[in-house]
C-alpha cells in the first residue's frame, strides 16, 4: 500500500542511480570449493520455551547449521554477429512464454558532444516519439494494446531500447522496436515538448537531495571536462544548448549496427530470433565510409590512476536550508569494469557497505541511530569506476556521522576483512547472482549492461569464479588499495549554517560551497 513503511531501503536511495544505473557491474561468486559459513553457535543452555521461564529441553534446539549451497555459475548467452555487424546475445529460457530484448549501442553520456551534455539521453528519449508510420501516441497505444513494454534510455557507457513481451505478441511488438531503432521521425513538434519536459525535470532535480549529492559527487570525482564528469541527463545549462539537429547527428553517428548488441532472453530459439530480426531490422545496415560510432574517447584514460595520495580530501556543501537531514556522500575514483579486480571489489564492498550487516550500516544505523541506512558501492564503467558511500543523517549529527563514516572506511581500508566478512561476502555475492538471473527481464538487463560496458558475454561466469577464489588476503589488499578516501571527496547536501560548525568541530576547516549541479 502507498503508506506502507519498509524496514530498510535495500536500494541505495537515489544516489548515483540516475548517472550510472545500468553501468554498475555487480559481480558475484559461485564455483566449487566454498568454505561453510561460520559454524553454528550453541544456543545458551537456558533457552526457554516461554521467554523467561527456563525449561529443560528447548523445542527449537540449537541453531541449524547451513550446508554449503551448490556452486552457482551464471548462464552464458550464445553470441554471434549478423551480416550488418550487429552482435546478438541469446539466452534461451522456455519456462514462461515471455521474451525480453535489448538493443544496446555502445554510446552513452560519456560520448555527449562537448557543451551538449545530456545528448545521448535526449536522443534515446526521442526514438519512441514517432517512428516509421507511427506518431508518438500511436507507438504507446500499439505497444500497450499488445501488453508489451517498450523503454528507451541512456547510461554513461551505452544507450538502449528495451522490449518485453509475451511470446504470442512478440512479432508485432518487435516490428515497432525495429522502427524505433532504425526509423525515428525526429519531429520538431515532438522535440519541443520533449525538450520542455527535460528542462523541467532538471529543474525538479535540484530539490531532490539524493540526486543533488549524486550529481555533485560525480562532477567532483571526475572533473567537469571528463567524459564521466556530468550527469547522464545533463545540466540545466547544457540542456538549453541541445537542439534537434544535435540529436539527429548523435543518432546518425552512434546508433549503428556495428556498435550494437541485441540481447535476447526468454522463450525463443535462434532460428526464430533470426527470422524475427530479419523482419524487425531489415534496413539497418552499416555505412563503413561514415564516421563510426561507439568509439570511446580515450582522452581521459590517463586519469584512471587513483588520485595522488598527497591530495587533500575536498569537502563541499550544497546548502539546503531547513532540511531535517544531511545527505552525506564520500567518493573517489576506481577501476574500470574490465579490470580484473572489479569483481573482487564488489565482494570487498559487501563487507563495508553492501549489505545490512555491513560495517557502515551497522555503525550509523544500528549502533548510533543517526540514519535510516548507510551504504557504499562501486560503479564500474568502461573507462574507469567510482567508489561511493552514502548516508542521510539527522542534521544534528552531521559532524559525528561524517567522522564515523570516514573512520569506518579508513579502518576497513587499513585492516581489511575479518574471517567472517571473507565468508559472508562470498555467500552474499552468490545469492545476489542467483537472484539477478531469476527473471527474464532482469537477466536481459544484466546482460545488456555487460554488453554496454564492453565486456564479453561470459563476463559474469568468469567473474564468479575469480571472485569465488579470492582469498581474505587478496580482498584485504584490494581494500587497502581502493577503499582509502583520504584524497577523495565529501559532498554534504543540507543546511549549511547548522553543518559548518559541526564540521569545524571534527577538524574540517576548509569547506567549499557549490550549487545543486556542482557549479
Amino acid at each position, binding site marked *: 500500500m502507498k503508506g506502507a513503511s519498509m524496514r530498510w531501503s535495500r536500494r541505495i536511495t537515489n544516489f548515483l542511480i540516475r548517472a550510472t544505473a545500468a553501468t554498475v557491474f555487480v559481480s558475484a561468486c559461485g564455483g566449487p570449493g566454498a568454505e561453510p559459513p561460520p559454524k553454528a553457535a550453541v544456543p545458551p543452555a537456558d533457552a526457554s520455551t516461554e*521467554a523467561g521461564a527456563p525449561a529443560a529441553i528447548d523445542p527449537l534446539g540449537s541453531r541449524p*547449521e547451513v550446508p554449503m549451497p551448490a556452486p552457482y555459475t551464471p548462464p552464458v548467452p550464445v553470441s554471434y554477429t549478423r551480416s550488418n555487424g550487429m552482435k546478438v546475445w541469446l539466452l534461451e529460457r522456455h519456462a514462461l512464454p515471455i521474451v525480453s530484448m535489448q538493443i544496446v549501442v555502445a554510446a552513452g553520456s560519456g560520448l555527449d558532444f562537448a557543451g551538449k551534455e545530456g545528448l545521448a539521453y535526449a536522443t534515446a528519449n526521442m526514438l519512441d516519439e514517432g517512428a516509421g508510420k507511427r506518431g508518438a*501516441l500511436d507507438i504507446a497505444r500499439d505497444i*500497450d494494446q499488445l501488453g*508489451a513494454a517498450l523503454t528507451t534510455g541512456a547510461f554513461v557507457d551505452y544507450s538502449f531500447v528495451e522490449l518485453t513481451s509475451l511470446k504470442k505478441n512478440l512479432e508485432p511488438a518487435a516490428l515497432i522496436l525495429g522502427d524505433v531503432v532504425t526509423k525515428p521521425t525526429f519531429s520538431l513538434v515532438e522535440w519541443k515538448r520533449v525538450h520542455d519536459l527535460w528542462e523541467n525535470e532538471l529543474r*525538479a532535480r535540484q530539490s531532490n537531495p539524493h540526486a543533488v549529492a549524486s550529481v555533485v559527487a560525480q562532477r567532483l570525482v571526475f572533473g567537469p571536462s571528463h567524459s564521466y564528469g556530468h550527469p547522464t541527463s545533463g545540466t540545466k545549462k547544457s540542456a538549453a544548448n541541445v537542439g534537434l539537429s544535435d540529436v539527429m547527428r548523435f543518432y546518425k553517428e552512434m546508433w549503428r549496427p556495428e556498435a550494437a548488441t541485441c540481447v535476447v532472453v526468454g522463450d525463443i530459439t535462434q532460428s526464430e530470433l533470426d527470422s524475427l530480426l530479419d523482419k524487425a531490422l531489415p534496413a539497418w545496415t552499416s555505412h563503413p565510409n561514415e564516421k563510426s560510432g561507439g568509439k570511446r574517447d580515450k582522452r581521459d584514460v590517463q586519469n584512471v590512476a587513483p588520485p595522488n595520495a598527497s591530495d587533500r580530501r575536498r569537502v563541499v556543501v550544497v546548502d539546503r536550508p531547513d532540511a531535517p537531514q544531511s545527505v552525506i556522500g564520500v567518493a573517489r575514483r576506481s577501476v574500470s569494469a574490465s579490470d580484473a579486480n572489479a569483481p573482487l571489489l564488489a565482494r570487498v564492498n559487501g563487507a563495508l557497505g553492501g549489505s545490512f550487516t555491513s560495517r557502515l550500516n551497522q555503525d550509523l544505523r544500528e549502533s548510533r541511530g543517526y540514519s535510516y541506512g548507510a551504504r557504499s558501492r562501486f560503479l564500474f564503467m568502461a573507462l574507469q569506476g567510482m567508489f561511493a558511500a552514502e548516508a542521510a543523517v539527522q542534521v544534528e549529527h552531521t559532524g559525528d556521522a561524517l567522522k564515523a563514516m570516514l573512520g569506518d572506511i579508513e579502518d576497513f581500508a587499513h585492516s581489511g576483512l575479518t574471517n567472517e566478512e571473507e565468508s559472508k561476502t562470498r555467500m552474499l555475492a552468490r545469492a545476489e547472482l542467483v537472484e539477478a538471473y*531469476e*527473471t527474464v527481464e532482469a537477466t536481459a538487463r544484466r546482460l545488456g549492461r555487460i554488453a554496454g560496458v564492453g565486456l564479453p558475454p561470459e563476463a559474469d561466469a568468469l567473474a564468479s569464479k575469480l571472485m569465488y577464489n579470492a582469498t581474505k588476503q587478496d580482498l584485504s589488499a584490494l581494500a587497502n588499495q581502493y577503499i582509502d578516501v583520504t584524497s577523495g571527496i565529501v559532498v554534504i547536501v543540507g543546511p549549511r549554517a547548522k553543518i559548518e560548525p559541526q564540521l569545524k568541530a571534527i577538524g574540517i576547516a576548509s569547506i567549499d560551497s557549490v550549487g545543486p549541479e556542482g557549479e
Partner: protein
Amino acid sequence: MAIRSSIFALGCGAGVLAYAALASADVNIPFSRSTLPNGMTVILHEDHAIPMVVVNVSYNVGSRFEKAGRTGFAHLFEHLMFMGTRRAPTKAFDAWMEASGGSNNAWTSQDRTDYYDVGANTSLDLLLWLEADRLRDLGPLMTHDKLNAQRDVVRNERRQTSENTPYGKVELRLPELLYPASHPYHHPVVGSHEDLEAATVDDTKAFFATYYDPANASLVVAGDFEPNAVKDKINRYFGAIPSRGKPIDPGAPNFLDTKTTLTGVVREAMEDNVELPKIIMAWQTPRHFAPGDAELDLISVALAGGKASRLYKALVYDQKLAQSVDASQDSGTLGSRFEVDVMARPGVSLDALEAAIDKELAAVRNAPLSGAELERAKNMVETSFVMRAESLRERAALLNMYEAEVGDPGYAEKDLTRYRVATTTSIQKVAEAYLVPNARVILRVVPKKESGK
C-alpha cells in the same frame, strides 16, 4: 495492490512495466495449506527452478490497530522484531542470516505487517528457526536500549522518506484529510515523532502479546525444498508455540467502504521544498476485492498508464499543462483510496490545471471508455500480474496477501477474473458512483516562498 519490495540489485534501473494479456493465462500459484494446532496458517509452494527459498511471515496487524497516542507503533514494532532474543541476541538475526547468504526485509501497511527472508536452498532450516524464535520469545525480552535504538532509526526513516523527499509530506497529511479522526486509516503508517517518542517498553510487550500470536500469523515457504522434511521442521519449530488466542480485529464498525464520509471538497495547500507544484486528488473507494475495486484499478490505468492514457494525452501531450501524471487505486482491507497526482509545468495556473483534470474525470463518469481503451487497460493489468509472478519472492508475498485478504491463497485466478469481466458499462457506473467531484480531497503542494526561484 501490495507494496513492491526494493531489490538490492545494484544498478537495475526502475522500469515501468506493462505486459500483454494471456487469454488463457494460467496464473495460479500451486500451494498446499494447513493449520497448526496453535492456529498458525502454513502455506507451502514448491518450485525447484532455482536453488533458492523464500520464507514470508504475515501478521494481521498494521497501523489501523494502533491505540490513540501511539501512531506509528505497528511499524516501529516491525523494526523491533529484529532486536533479538536469548537464542539470537541483538544483531544475530541479520548476522546469521547474511552469513549464510540470506537477506531479509519487512514492511508495514495500515492492515498488515509482512516479513520475508530469502536464502539459499540449504538455509531454510535456519530461516525457519529464526522466525520461530522471535515469534516465540521476542516480546518479553524487550528493553529500553532496543526500543531506543530502533526509535532513532524509525524517526530517521520518517525524515528521509517523508520530510526530506520532494512531495514526501503528502503521505503524512493525506490520510488525515481523507478520513475522519475516528477512522482507523486517519493517521499515516509511519506515525508522528511525538507518538514514536512516547512509546514504552510496556507498550511493546503488550503489543507483542496481543498481535504476535501464531493464530494471527501466516507462514509461507516457497521455493526449492523437500516438503516432508519442511513440514517436520515447521511442526517442531512453530507447532509448540502457545497461542493466547487470535486477537479481535476491531475493523471500522461505524464506517462503510462504499459510503464516503466526505461531504464536500476538502481543500488544503502545503508548502514544500520543491520546484514544481503538484495537485493531488483523493477519494474514499471500495475495499480490496469488493465490487468496484478492480474497475477502479482499470480506471487508473486508462487515466494515467502510459502516454496514450487520458490524463497524459490531455495534460502533458496536448495542453502542455502538466509535467507528469499518476493515478492509483490503493486497496485496503477496510476501504481504498483512489488518487490522482499531477505535477504542473512551471508557470501554469493551478486553477486551470485543476479544471483540466476535472474535465477528464467528468468524461470518465459521463461516457463509457472505448472498447480499445478497456482492452489496453486489461492487457496491461493482466500481464503485469503474470510478470510479477515470475519472481519467487513475489509469489510468496501474493500467497500471503490472498490468505490475509480473502482467506484463500489460491485466489489468483479469481482475482484476475475480476478484471477480465469488467465492462465499459460497469466501469462507468463505478466512476459515477465513487469518483464524484463533490466528495474528495484536493491537496496542492506549492514551492516554498523563500526557496521558490
